Structure formats: C-alpha cells, structure tokens
C-alpha cells in the first residue's frame, strides 16, 4: 500500500506585509541581509512570518510542514551566510534564474552554528530542509580548505553537524539542484554521493535527496543510488522523460519524491492534473511499488507571488488525496 504525502521543498515567499515590514526594518543593500545576528524587531517579525507560513500549510492540508525558511535571504546558501567563518561578498546569479545571492566565501573552519535547528524548534515543523552538500559546495567559494575534495567533505561534515542538532522531524529534504545543473565530474560524483551519506547518517528522519531543473546525468545518478537515503526526488515538471529514464534504467529507492507542481509558474495546476501526473509516473515503473510517494512542487517556492503559492498548496494537497495507486 502506497502512502502519498503532500509536502514542499520550503523556501516560501514572504507574505506581502512582511516584504514591506522587513525591508523597512533591514534595508535593501547586501549588508542588510540576514547574517545570524538579527535584532529583536526583526526576530519578532520572522516569528510572525513563521506562524503565517505554517498556517498556509495547515489550511491547505499538507502532510508535512516545513518551517518556511523565510530568513534564507541567500536561498540555499543561507546556512553558510550566517557562519562566522564565512564572508558574504558580491551579489551573484542564483542558477539560471533572475535571482541573486551573496557569494559565501569560506575562510575558516566550518563548525555547526545551530541556526537551522533553532528555526525548526521555533516552528514545530515535521520536515526539515537543508541544501544538499554538493549544491552548497557548488554555490560557495573556498579560501580555506585548499582543494575541492576537502572542501566538499568539510561542507558535508558541517551540514551533518547542523542536522545532528535538529529536533525530531519526520523527514529531511536535502535540496540538490546542482546535481542536475552543474553535475559532478568523474570521481567527484562518487564523493557527492558520499557527502550525502555523511549528512543522512546524522539524522534518524527519512532523508529525501530532491533534485530539479532537469534530470541528473546517468553516472551521478548511478552513484546517488549508492547513497543510504530513503528517497530521491525528481522534477516531473521540467524533465519527465529524463526522470523516468533514470528510474527505469537504474531503479530508485523504496520511497520517491515527485516534483509535480511548477514552483516557477503562476498557472495553478488542477488537483486531478496533479493526481494524473503521479499515477502516470507509477505506470511507467510497473516493476516497482513505492512505500511512500512525496508529492511536491519541483522547486523552492519563493519564485511565486503569495496568492498563487497558497492556491498551489491547496491543489497539491487535494491532488495527493485523489491519487489511486
């Protein structure tokens, strides 16, 4: 019997009132962004935002609740942006989007900050979100560890230490778009998979390695299958053929995450459309019965305006209910 759980990869858009309030409180320049030492007023506002984002998810009827990552001004680079041994420099492009983050430059040892676990504790979330180690490694610049393998290891150890401090959650989503967009080369692909193992081993929760903006090339995918995680996530919005190919050729884990709602388009999917997409994937792999299917938007959600974000959460929850596998 397959259980279908509606969830999201986090990084929600700020409610519109908070966009105004936080930009007034913090400012518009790069030095004004979250670096871990926010004042009381800013902290309080983020607390209100956290409550509202949880309400959106509960009202929609999602099965897994995330904290919302509203403080992640630098998107997936956030866990490094708040680290004392990391300097945030110029504004650089965030993947192939018209979005930008501050380049995090690591100039000292990376030890746990407790930043993400504090957020989780404040939210009573059932699902944690972290950047995957390979993606965080790809987004960052190293001026301390000296070689790429050592830097990737250090990032993995750092994320593992963050995750170790998490309160109990059901699921940990590791977001790994770089495995698709900037795939690891020979040798590096095996290390990327080992780095994921390092982080996954730090938690008792189910771990989902979620990928998007296409499908992972074959070799890194084959290595990813060696990682000891419960599920891999696929982007069925941007590349259903490539995703199905990987699953058919190399198999996948007993659980699976399916990106079936477009996180970068305001068109709201109908619940039956979402259910059909999930059933379609299941039809493509008759040999496999999944224990758990995580139905999710393909990408983070901050690309969307708030009205459509909420509409999509509702459609996702309703669509997941309709699935018959």
């Amino acid at each position, binding site marked *: 019997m397959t259980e279908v759980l509606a969830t999201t990869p986090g990084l929600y*858009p700020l409610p519109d009132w908070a*966009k105004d309030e936080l930009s007034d409180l913090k400012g518009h320049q790069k030095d*004004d962004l979250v670096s871990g030492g926010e004042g009381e007023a800013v902290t309080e506002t983020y607390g209100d935002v956290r409550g509202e984002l949880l309400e959106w998810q509960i009202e929609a009827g999602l099965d897994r609740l995330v904290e919302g990552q509203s403080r992640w001004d630098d998107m997936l680079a956030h866990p490094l942006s708040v680290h004392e041994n990391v300097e945030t420099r110029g504004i650089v492009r965030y993947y192939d*989007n018209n979005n930008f983050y501050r380049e995090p430059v690591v100039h000292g040892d990376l030890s746990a900050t407790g930043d993400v676990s504090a957020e989780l504790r404040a939210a009573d979330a059932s699902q944690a979100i972290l950047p995957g180690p390979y993606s965080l490694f790809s987004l960052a610049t190293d001026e301390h560890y000296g070689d790429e393998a050592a830097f990737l290891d250090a990032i993995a150890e750092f994320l593992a230490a963050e995750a170790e401090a998490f309160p109990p959650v059901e699921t940990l989503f590791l977001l790994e778009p770089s495995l698709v967009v900037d795939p690891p080369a020979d040798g590096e692909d095996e290390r990327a998979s080992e780095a994921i193992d390092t982080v996954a081993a730090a938690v008792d929760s189910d771990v989902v390695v979620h990928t998007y903006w296409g499908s992972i090339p074959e070799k890194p995918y084959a290595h990813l299958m060696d990682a000891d995680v419960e599920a891999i996530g696929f982007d069925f919005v941007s590349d259903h053929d490539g995703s199905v190919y990987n699953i058919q050729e190399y198999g996948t884990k007993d659980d699976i995450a399916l990106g079936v709602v477009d996180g970068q388009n*305001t068109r709201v999917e109908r619940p039956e459309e979402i259910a059909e997409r999930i059933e379609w994937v299941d039809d493509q792999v008759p040999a496999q019965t999944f224990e758990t299917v995580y139905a999710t938007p393909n990408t983070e959600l901050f690309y969307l*305006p708030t009205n459509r974000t909420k509409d999509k959460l509702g459609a996702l929850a309703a669509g997941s209910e309709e699935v018959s596998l």
Partner: protein
Amino acid sequence: MSPDGYVDTRSQFRPEDHPNDHFLLTTVVGSYPKPKWLNRAKELAEDDDRDFDDANLEEALDDAARLITDEHVRSGLDVVVDGEMRRNEMVEYFADRIDGYEFNGPVKVWGHNYFDKPSVADEVRYDEPWLVDEFEFTTGVTDRPVKVPITGPYTLASWSFNEHYDDEAELAYELADLVNEEINALVAAGARYIQIDEPALATTPDDHAIVGECLEHIADGVPEDVRLGLHVCYGDYSRIYPEILDMPVHEYDLELANGEYDQLDVFTQPSFDKDLALGVVDVHTADVESVESIKQNITKGLEIVPPERLTVSPDCGVKLLPREAAYRKMENMVQAAREVEAELDAGEVDVGYAGE
C-alpha cells in the same frame, strides 16, 4: 548600402554644427535616476486622502521628462532620451499595456528587492500605444534627435510567468510582433533610432537564436533609414558572438567597462561588421571616471570598429546612480568623445582601425 552590406543609419544624427571632422555618436542606454520629488508625487497620487489626482501626477511626469531631457541636452549628448521617467520598471511598464498580461504580486529578485513579475494568462494582444506619447513629448521639448529604448520580446517573455503558451519562444515571437507594431507607430510619429533591450539574454545566452528570430519579426517592414540597436549587458559574450552579427540590427550596444574590457577580444574574430555602441563608463560605481580614463576606454572601441562605426555610451541604464554622478559621467563622456574626435582629426590616434 555599401558593397559589404553595411547600411549607414548613423550620419543622420550628426549635428550640423559638429565641431570635428570625425564624429563619435554620443548617447545613453536609457534609464536615469528619477528626481526625488517624482517619487513623492507618485506616493501622493496613490494616497486617496490627498488632493493629488492623476492629472497632477501626469503633470509631474511631464515635468520630470522635460527636466531629464534637458539634463541630457546640457551634457552635450548627440542623441537623447527622457531617462524613462514614465516607466516604473522595464517589464512591468509594458506588461501593463499589453492585453493578456495580469499581475499577481511582487516576487523576490534578491534580498528585499522585489519585482511585480507579471503572468501571461491569455493570448497577448496590442491594445494601446506604449511609447508614442513619451516619444512625442520628448521630441517636443528638444531639437536633438531622440532615441527610443524598448524592452525586447525575449526579456518580456523570460521575465514573466508564461501560463498560456507552449514555450517561452512561442510567447517571445508573439510579443515580437507586438513590438513590431509599436515600432511602426513610433516610426510614423517620426522616430529614427530604436534600441531593443534584451538583458535576459545574459542569463540564457544559448537562446541567441530565439532573440535573432524575434528581431526578424521586429525589423519586418521597418524603413531602412531607421536605426535599430540591440542592447545586451553583463553576460559571457563569447557565447553570442559572432552569431549576433546576423541579426537584422545596425548597432550592438554592449556593456564592457564594468569588466574592464576583459571580453574585448571576443569581438576581434571575425571582424565586427556592424556599428558598435561601446559602454565607456561603469554604471555600478558612483565614482565619476575622469575624461582621460574615458578617452582610453573609447580608444578600446577603435580596436573593434573604425571611428565612423563607433557610438559612445554608458554600460547600461544609469538609474541606480546618484543623479549628480549620472550627470557628471555623461558630461565627461561627451567631452572625452569630442577630444578623441579632435585627436583623430589631427592624426594623433593610432589604435586599431584608427591607425590604418
């Protein structure tokens, strides 16, 4: 048209009293810092409790457009714009005037900087003129030739949510037809210099063929003496050159000063056979470049094209600079161009094409 296919659309902009034999056309990309009082006027117009209505705002916009056009004239530019005083943002402004677009609310660009990214919810259609009033107003307040910058269809498509069309290319081609319609209206109103802005090409340079196809739609039926330019900025030009030379435009306006001309070599092979509008001042620093350093930047352009094909311009729109810095950059840029022209007349410049 000359034997090599080159069309001279440039000499029509040479002022009658131009002081030198050589002529380096000086202009700007388009946007300019808005006067603070204009932003205040917009706030007042949005506040229902205030006795400041749309007619008052219209007057304020006219005043701002007149003021900034004058500022361009005073700096000595050969071709001016109104600093895009009436445009709130380069996509929103157009989406607001095209049928089929709707707005759902702001989305993040970075940090607490947001953009009211529109959605294409239905077939896009030409409804009302976009820029004809702006152009007619500007030409009414100056004797100088006026350039019209228009956000290109590829950028309008990429920086929108596409709910309606099968893919972004299809949307871009439909929008290109609307841009063509607008250009025809502008040409009928007397416009002779139109610049298509495609900053989105920097994000996805592999889409240059889509931009090329859009420009075919845009240029269709436009009279040969109307100068068409393409502005691109902050990208890896090696991924779009030399392919862009095949696009049906006369001039390419490129940001190069910000990268200290590290990409200049890209344009040497094969040779650049169109007009080059070279960015010679950086719009991301408020430090005003000296006339001497701008002159050095201008001569970099002579490594790519001969003087009669060189336009001198800032890297990009200057709207994020303090207004004083924006003005002084233009003033120094014009002075630098005039000095280089005089040196060319005197045979004192021997860089690249100038030395031949």
